[in-house]
């Protein structure tokens, strides 16, 4: 399982890449591997406000639909529409396949996210 050193993580298997007050959000290699081949992705709407822990997107594999949760509170300022046409990109390259960019409204929430080591330990403990 691949975990990127420079990203932050949630217990619901989202990754976060911080660029200033913008947060790119995707799902981890572990998450995509658990789901299997993705066949459908439903993205949020730009300009929507979202709270930490709210459903941000939906990913569907052949077998099931799962929610992707917002790791941080803020406003959706960009979505990766390419994923709608090519959901399999998330399987191939989960850390390049960002779902949405959130403009963060509460930077203190960043401290609640896990670093790579903590996430790795978390995944091992889950198994």
């Amino acid at each position: 399982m691949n975990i990127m050193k420079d990203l932050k993580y949630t217990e619901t298997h989202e990754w976060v890449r911080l660029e200033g007050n913008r947060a790119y959000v995707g799902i981890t290699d572990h998450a995509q591997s658990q789901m299997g081949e993705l066949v459908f992705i439903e993205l949020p709407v730009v300009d929507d406000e979202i709270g930490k822990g709210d459903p941000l997107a939906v990913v569907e594999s052949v077998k099931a639909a799962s929610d992707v949760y917002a790791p941080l509170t803020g406003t959706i300022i960009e979505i990766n529409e390419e994923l709608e046409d090519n959901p399999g990109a998330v399987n191939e390259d989960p850390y390049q396949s960002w779902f949405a960019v959130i403009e963060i409204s509460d930077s203190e929430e960043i401290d609640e996210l896990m670093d790579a080591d903590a996430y790795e330990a978390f995944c091992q403990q889950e198994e």
Partner: protein
Amino acid sequence: MKKTPLYELHVQAGGKIIDFGGWALPVEYEGIIREHETVRTAAGLFDVSHMGEILVEGPDAEKYLQKMLTNDLAPMQDYQVYYTFMCYPDGGVVDDLIVYKYNANLYLLVVNASNKDKDYEWLLQHRAGQVTITDVSDNYALFAVQGPNAQRILQDMTSTDLNQIKFFRFSSEVIIGDTPVMISRTGYTGEDGFELYLSPDQAPSLWQKILEQGQKHGLRPVGLGARDTLRFEAALPLYGHELSADISPLEAGLGHFVKFSKSDFIGKEALLRQKEGGVKRKLIAFEMLERGIPRAGYEVQADGKTIGYVTTGGIAPSLNKNIGLALIASDYAQEGQTIEVAIRKRSMRALIIPKPFYSKKYKKA
């Protein structure tokens, strides 16, 4: 979790193991869609050893089973296989199963793994006459070899002419490789193929032999994920979805396997009432007209009200469409009728179409 004799081989082959009703089984090896296509175009090897087997024997076996099952066993020949239901008095389904007839004194029932204990109890409760009922599930491993190349692959491994085993027939004395098996031309994929019953201790070696022999004909191991998409495309019912204690065979559109012409069987009265009065709900097939994937349990709506629910939904890998089966109010159950499926917060349009989605490629001649 219970393990089949092939558990270690599944893990070694990279199978993704899940808990399937208490059994540790592979949901996929290399991806559900690829495995699905393998079965449609070449051949797949499935471990379905979790299925339950119950032996019914004795001079009153036929009479007893006629009472327990909805299909009519009277015309059944030795070494024939029937699909049938076992119903409750109210017409709900205890289980759907296949019956193997060795002779009028000896039948093998093959039942759903998750229903096996319940079925066995039900059968014992209603035991009558000179009949012995035995749960022999632990005596059998079960493989399914399914797909257009299935026969070619197995024929290379046996001196028995497999053309002699017709659709829904079986032979109990066939050697595949050097392993004795009971083999039937049956399956759950909508393709031609066979199911092999064998001793659990011989299962790992035969599994590996079939994989080796089948490789040149495109055979690959296939997990439970593709087993479900394959049966779904062929509109074959799955207990707990299209059939249950609350869904009768007539509602599911499977009245063909309920024979009112035979003498009394459990559920006959209730089912006859349903047949004469017309069922209030019907199982229909639909395809989505909007971008969304229907899933089991989603509500189906029309005229602004809820008319039923999706029993199985998903993408159809062979058809590249989003499709579903749904149990809905009979008033709406006409092909060509537009319905709506509640997918998360939205209602998305769908069209009722004929079943099955994928026409079965059985070798019936």
